[in-house]
């Protein structure tokens, strides 16, 4: 469920060169075209979808590097 929501957010905001629904959870999103600009939009959409706020210490590149990384960040925030 959580992963589906993450994929949906990525599909809407990450501007990847591939289909976010078919992505390997470990695939490097930056290699697939995620820019720092787009990652901010992904972050905002995740905050909306999961009703959380990313603290500053999670606002770094690695947090949004893969579906798995996003998922563990959300887990850390108690959202998934």
């Amino acid at each position: 469920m959580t992963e589906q929501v993450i994929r949906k957010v990525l599909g809407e905001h990450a501007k990847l060169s591939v289909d976010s629904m078919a992505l390997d959870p470990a695939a490097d999103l930056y290699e697939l075209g995620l820019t720092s600009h787009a990652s901010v939009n992904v972050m905002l959409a995740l905050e909306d979808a999961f009703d959380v706020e990313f603290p500053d210490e999670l606002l770094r590149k690695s947090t949004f590097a893969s579906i798995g990384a996003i998922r563990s960040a959300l887990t850390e925030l108690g959202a998934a």
Partner: protein
Amino acid sequence: MTSVSAPFTVAENAGLSLLARAEIVGRESAGPAAAEVDREGRFPHEALDALRVHKLLNCAVPVDQGGEGVSLGELCAVARILGRYCASTAMIFAMHQTQILSLVRHSTPGVTAFVAEAVANDYLIASATTELGTGGDVRSSVCAVARDGEAVSLTKNAPVISYGEYADAILVTARRTADSPPSDQVLVVCRRGDVTLEPTGNWDTLGLRGTCSPGFVLTATTSADLVVGAAYSEISSRTMLPVSHSVWSAVWLGIADAAMEKARSFVRSVARRSPGVTPPGALRLAEAAAVHQQFADLVAASAARFDAAASAQDESMSGMGFSLAMNNLKVTASTLVVDLVNRAMLICGIAGYREDSQYSLGRHLRDAHGAAVMVNNDRIMNNSAQLSIAYRGTL
């Protein structure tokens, strides 16, 4: 006719501090040639020779790799001194340091060997990061690396390559493969001998004329182990952006130093003519000195922020707060340099406006205006605007 002359030796480095060497390069080589370099838009050969003689090109390389391992703060101090004498020389120095630190800090075996070669031969290293068709976004490439066994090749239409014709190597950004998206970039080390540069324009600019930065179509074939292993996004955010913004800001501070020196000496000469009367320019000078102090403190604090994070291998370097702080440095410094040269101009009046007076500020003013347009401030602020939506901390 057969007399054997003793080899010419330079009393180099003998106990001289980094800053003393920078001062010698500035005073004896860069400064005397600055007016001609600016007028003719020519490469400052004598200053580069002096930087080599005084071993300043590799001072930031770690000691165990043949350098002196100086901090970014110290590099900035050197850039500032050079900037006071010749902004073009100082910018070339600053850009070179950014390139060599990128290689040192994101090293892979092939790159380490290249750094050793660069240190041993005092290479000057340039970069080709902008490209036609990307709208000025250095984090996006059209060209891609093509692999053929151990060889890689690429062709890039670069609107500017600073001192490309005079460099011993050029670091080129390109998409990782022909199938990679524009933002998935790598940095490729190309020795000058493996590069063809076909000029596409001139470098006839208002200021920073000695950096000799026309456009070129660059074609290179190099070896696969000279493709830096780390993703360019990492190199860019952890090294290229913070280092370049710091050393550039230090160069601009040097320009401001030069303008302030002229303003101060002008006010002093007026004061000497009427002892006991505070000259009208003195108040403006005091105000300018306060701004100048902010500028100097900002550059020093930003370099210290980098040095502290770098020595701790801190994760914060990839954080938004760090990026925002470095963006702010660039935008603020590039604004302050123009402000301070303007203030100096009002203090010196017609003597500063003249091209033939000892207080002439024309070159400094023209060089200062390069600061806001090289990596345009609006582009940087747009990036900051996006980060600001997300960032919650204090800088």
